[in-house]
């Protein structure tokens, strides 16, 4: 399965991926309409360092510990994609503690977890990868 990979050497910390993610998940067809005057809550987050930056988002692990750890069965694997059923999430943070990549994040507005579910139809590059200016996020089969 094609997955999202991060090439930290090339990440510029421009944060474009966060904005494209927020736009992708907004359901709107225009970025300005989706994001103007809003605080974005992207599923991908850029970690910035002195020498190195990288974008953190769900790896869609083959053997996902988060799914195993979820106490309410809100997390599941569908065609290799780790999905969240928000109606089942009880906001217990167990998945946050379990995920070794730290990609699950609480959405305070909704009071439940949010996570990347690969926003575009399978096989097509998700917005974060498609719009990274320096190929620091790559969507491919490895």
């Amino acid at each position: 399965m094609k997955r999202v990979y991060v090439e930290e050497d090339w990440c510029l910390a421009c944060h474009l991926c966060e904005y494209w993610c927020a736009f992708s998940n907004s359901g709107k067809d225009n970025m300005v309409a989706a994001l103007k005057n809003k605080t974005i809550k992207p599923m991908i987050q850029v970690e910035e360092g002195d020498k190195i930056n990288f974008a953190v988002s769900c790896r869609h692990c083959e053997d996902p510990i988060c799914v195993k750890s979820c106490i309410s069965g809100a997390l599941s694997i569908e065609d290799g994609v780790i999905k969240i059923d928000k109606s089942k999430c009880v906001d217990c943070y167990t998945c946050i503690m379990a995920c070794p990549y730290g990609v699950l994040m609480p959405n305070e507005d909704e009071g439940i977890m949010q996570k990347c579910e690969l926003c575009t139809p399978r096989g097509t590059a998700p917005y974060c990868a498609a719009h990274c200016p320096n190929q620091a996020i790559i969507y491919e089969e490895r």
Partner: protein
Amino acid sequence: MSINFLQPEYEVVRNMDRCITCRVCERQCANEVHHYNADLDRMVSDDSKCVDCQRCVTLCPTNALKIVKTNNCFKENANWHTSDITDIYRQATTGGVLLGSMGTPKEYPVYWDKLLINASQVTNPSIDPLREPMETRTFLGKKDATIHYDKDGNIITKTTPQLELSTPIMFSAMSYGSISYNAHKSLAMAATKLGIYYNTGEGGLHEDFYVYGPNTIVQVASGRFGVHSDYLEAGAAIEIKMGQGAKPGIGGHLPGAKITEAVSKTRMIPQGTDAISPAPHHDIYSIEDLRQLVYMLKESTNYKKPVIVKIAAVHNVGAIASGIARCGADIIAIDGFRGGTGAAPARIRDNVGIPIELALASVDRRLREEGIRNQVSLVVGGSIRSSADVIKAIALGADACYIATSALIALGCHLCRTCHLGKCNWGIATQVPELVKRLNPAIGSEHLVNLVTAWTHEIKEMMGGMGINSIEALRGNRLMLRGVGLTEKELEILGVKHAGE
């Protein structure tokens, strides 16, 4: 401090209806033009720092930005152009030589644009490159006048070393130091993939790039930076740089700020010191001296590598080239006055040298008249902008073209002409690690490969149209060119007829 007479040249225009305050522009502008102002809750800009490199415009996700030339104007004056006035303001404040980079922006005639290419009609059919073979491969080096065979038909002439190019285009000299590690890597990777050559320039060869040696031309310039026996051995050919089109007659100066640890190691000079290439080679004051260096380099590489001598296009270039051909060089590279540079005194860049088209035509003619054209190959550079320029150069007598500015543009350069400031927002003309990172060689080399591949397709199509199926048959074939709007004298120098003839 007194008042500053200089007003911003550009204005940053932000469409506030579109700006989503993502601050991408702020993070991407190394010149610190954009800022988020929390009181206003909006982006503000300091126009005076903008160099119009278009990085922010390109990366803004909502196309909210454009950079426009200011319409603030001095009182019109046909004699005193705005640039004349502002240059004086600059010099009156600094007392210094004005620096510039890339090729001259001044309006000089571009002869390529006054030459038109022929096409076959009726009598000699054109060739369809998609259906018939079309040879763009070419060899650079001294061509033997006679070939001897043994009785079994095997060639017994001791042939001179040649550079084999899949297409008559090479990336010309840009030193590591003037351009970044990633820019060099992109060029090296692309040259290898394409079966052509890139050129180290005068800054030595980074140890990581020795693997690209078979597609590398190593340069020996007046500063002799990074020259040692492994370096000479590493390349496929050695180029002696006598001059550069953008700054004929003067040396080079790479400011200490660009001499990072890696650059200092490669150049073999202390970190942080200015790298100054003298104007002349201090061991070359005559053709005989040049001959000594040519043969010294040949000797030290066992006569296995062609030696290129690169000169700037200047007055009497024909006689100079003749001397070079006679001193044992295998290839002469000529760099026209529109050629690029990482830094040069602006007055020299804008006023010294001659157009490459005229230099090429006179050198080719002179060498043919003297019967020594086969002793050298001619490579020309200095603002080759398209495949059409390549075709015209070959028809005027060139064996191949050097491209550098075009290659940088393919890497993202927007010709902002501030390379000398060292803060290239595209990761090309800079040594600042965060900026260098912006050029991912995987993307860069792909762009370069695409560019040269596209040009090669176009070259084949234009050759096919002329009914010519190989670069060899186009070389020096001036009948394939006609001039438009040129004087008798210009046509005479170019050796082409006027359109309609």
